[in-house]
């Protein structure tokens, strides 16, 4: 097997960009939503919970189609975003990132929520009596204690983003250099006579990327726990 070709490198780079951007934008939202579901009581909580979990149970193609209808250039939300902010998702790599973010969101929220729920709530109460505002207690107690869950949730969502296929191809199509991520490229090669070898190479890249993500997450978790111990302030 020879070195990685520029075309292949472009596909890998695009896949990473899509997955990283999707995770970076969804993480803050996921933390807030997970905290809300774990710690607050509000009307419609069950509904919010159900809506967040929808991408997990719906066929990805349906999610992609919904995005296309809502966020397409003429869609009710897409047209407004374009008009007001000049933001276009349809048939752009940003759309692929959005599709990845939505598909990975329930996994991310779930991981974070579980780790927040596992924190003894009395620790937060104790911190309040010691003079911490609600926000400071969240930042100094809840967030660091939930860190392992945040890392796990991020990894799951990142991996889901790398592998995202159905919603992406439906929403932003399969445009080389713009929206053709690794899974889409693999699919394309399997449709071309004699493309199996290239599909295999691409699949190996996908495996390597996934393992690298897993190892990084393990390393981050361990480092986070180590930092807690060394933290003097």
């Amino acid at each position, binding site marked *: 097997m020879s070195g990685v070709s520029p075309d292949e490198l472009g596909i890998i780079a695009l896949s990473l960009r899509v997955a990283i951007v999707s995770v970076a934008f969804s993480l803050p939202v996921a933390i807030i939503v997970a905290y809300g579901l774990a710690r607050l009581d509000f009307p419609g909580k069950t509904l919010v919970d159900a809506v967040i979990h929808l991408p997990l149970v719906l066929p990805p193609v349906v999610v992609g189609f919904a995005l296309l209808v809502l966020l397409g250039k003429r869609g009710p939300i897409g047209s407004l975003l374009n008009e007001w902010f000049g933001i276009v998702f349809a048939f752009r790599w940003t759309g692929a990132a959005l599709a990845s973010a939505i598909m990975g969101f329930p996994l991310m929220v779930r991981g974070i929520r579980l780790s927040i729920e596992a924190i*003894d709530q*009395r*620790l937060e*109460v*104790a*911190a*309040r*009596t*010691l*003079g*911490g*505002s609600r926000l*400071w207690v969240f930042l*100094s*107690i809840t967030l*660091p*204690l939930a860190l392992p869950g945040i890392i796990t949730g991020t990894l799951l969502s990142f991996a889901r983003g790398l592998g995202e296929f159905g919603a992406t191809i439906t929403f932003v199509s399969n445009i080389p250099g713009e929206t053709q991520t690794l899974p889409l490229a693999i699919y394309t090669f399997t449709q071309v006579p004699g493309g199996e070898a290239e599909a295999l190479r691409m699949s190996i890249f996908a495996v390597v990327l996934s393992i690298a993500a897993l190892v990084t997450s393990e390393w981050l978790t361990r480092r986070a726990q180590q930092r*807690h*111990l060394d*933290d*003097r*302030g």
Partner: protein
Amino acid sequence: MIEVDIEQRLGGFHLDVKFVAEAPIVGLFGRSGAGKTSVINAIAGITKPRRGSIRVNDTLLFDAARGIDVAPEKRRIGYVFQDPLLFPHRDVESNLLYGQRLRPPADLFIEPARVIELLGLRTLLRRRTQTLSGGEKQRVAIGRALLAQPRILLMDEPLAALDVPRKTEILNYIERLRDELRIPIVYVSHSVPEIARLADTVVVLSEGKCLAVGDVDAVMGRLDLKPVTGRYEAGSLLDTRVTGHDSEHQLTTLAFEGGQLVVPYLDAAVGERVRARIRARDVSLALLRPSEISILNILPGRVRSIDHETGPIVDVQLVVGAATLTARITRRSLQQLDIHAGQELYALVKAVSFDQRSVGYA
């Protein structure tokens, strides 16, 4: 000074408590489920009463009618919970300083160095909280609450999770806090020995209501509160001063208004105030002063009242000098000796019936 007048519904439990207490240590006493924790949670601002007001040291913290509800982080009330609740991701020092770092410099009056020395935490500072023993954890929790610079310290059964040697250790530390930092403490407990040893004023709670407030000796000695204070633990408290040590026999003499007590050696200087608790079942009665007897404490007194409860056991309230003493004897002895109110007699207390837990610095 603590003024509480609150009404609160917690599930099926109705809390309706009103009391005013001022003392270096206020004991909040009652059986489990009496509402003790609910009261201090309301004082700390963790829960919100439906009606009423809470005032600590002339600062209004809560007033339902006027819509005042100071946030817990702004109340400056130190809370030591039953469990230490140390932050597991921070070491001991970082736990200790958590609250102090959040207070404006103008509010700082308790020095970290002083608290660390007072609670013996110097060698623990770099330790992870998971490696501490139960007693050490509770000491760190107390230090952390103190360094948040509280106006008042609430302690919710801080000894409940500890074994007996640790309990004695923490009790000594709490007494040092009271004497050296002069910070008012509300001490919640269902244990008569703990309340008797620490508290000056006691608030007795039962089923969400306040039954009595007053001097510990007076309130805990009341026979009508026996269903709450418990028959087994009945006793009386004497405020005494150390008058001398007998180093040969390792004994200490304590004087109170109207008599003196000999107790096993006590590590306290002559002149120091010491509180002695005498359990009613450790007091015997004699009509004549006995001689040639091993009992070292023979106190002349007069019968004030007799608790006429049916059953084999009777409590006799005695006046000894200015103090009240309860003797627990059988009904048979009462009848055989024909003991009645107003009678002069002698109360006998073995010196060995005093232990570490019944004698403490006042």
